[in-house]
């Protein structure tokens, strides 16, 4: 019985370790944190940002496994949704950049001068696609 518990604890710990490593590696490759510090010029605060990610991950992990409920007003969901969206948006933008699509696209089709317009197409596409999905598509 004890041995079972020890094995389970070990498996859980090992799994968590690897998933945690993978998550941080993923964030590092995409370079979202450096990008944010570059925009806000807060390079000296990077240590605190690391802690923010670690604590956020642990918090999210805890509440999703425990079914915690806070019984708050739905108003709180507006900033939460906004923050979630900004983060996912930055992930999506970073992914597009990593796979190097846009430089090649602009060169091939000769829209050098209209780069911003092309970018806006992608941004509006994401927003409209997302709204369409939530408001209409999920009911089908």
């Amino acid at each position: 019985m004890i041995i079972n518990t020890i094995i389970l604890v070990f498996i859980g710990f090992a799994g968590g370790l690897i998933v945690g490593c993978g998550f941080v590696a993923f964030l590092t490759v995409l370079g979202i944190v450096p990008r944010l510090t570059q925009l806000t010029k807060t390079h000296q605060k990077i240590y605190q940002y690391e802690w923010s990610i670690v604590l956020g991950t642990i918090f999210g992990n805890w509440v999703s496994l425990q079914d915690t409920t806070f019984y708050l007003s739905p108003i709180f969901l507006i900033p939460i949704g906004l923050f979630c969206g900004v983060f996912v948006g930055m992930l999506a933008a970073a992914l597009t950049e990593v796979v190097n699509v846009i430089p090649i696209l602009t060169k091939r089709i000769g829209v050098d001068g209209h780069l911003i317009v092309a970018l806006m197409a992608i941004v509006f596409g994401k927003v409209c696609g997302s709204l369409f999905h939530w408001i209409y598509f999920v009911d089908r």
Partner: protein
Amino acid sequence: MEDSIYIRMRNKVEVNQNSKITLSDIAQIIAPEKYLHQLKQLFIYQVTKEDKNTVVIDVMKIIDALTQKWSGLDIQLIGPSQTIVEVIYKKRKVSFPFFILIWLLLFIGSALAIMNFHEDVSMQEVHQKIYKMITGESVSKPLILQIPYSIGLGLGMIIFFNHIFKKRFNEEPSPLEVEIFNYQQDLDQYVIVNENKEAIRHLDDH
């Protein structure tokens, strides 16, 4: 004492078709006053139809031309050792319908991609869970969470690319501009080696 001439090749120049390239077109020159005017007008290369889009002019060609005209010059080369000459034909304009087509392609493509992503990671379920976690009630469509989420999605991309339409947050180049610069740099590197007939020697075994 010999007179020194300092030459620095430009990285990249654009010329019109059939133009004559002189030394001052493709290089910066510092030289004693008595040579300077003649040097600047020195004919280097005639652009022809066969050149197509790019010509690479190596500094050896320039040294050759200089030593033929004046012997015993001291030529000092600074910086890159070749110039990429880009021949500009009639400016290709992107036609408007074609542009709209590309725009729609990107628009619909990214809309589809984000929907697939949401389905893939069960985003709807996660949103329902978050709604339940905060308020204690279950709803099937937590739109109060999802509409700000959708707006934030666009905002996050704009922040990452450092553009709000034409206005930028600060002077630093965005990752995309750096990416495009790197890509152009790679292309130039390729052109320098492959368009320059003197740069590669193949075995002639045919």
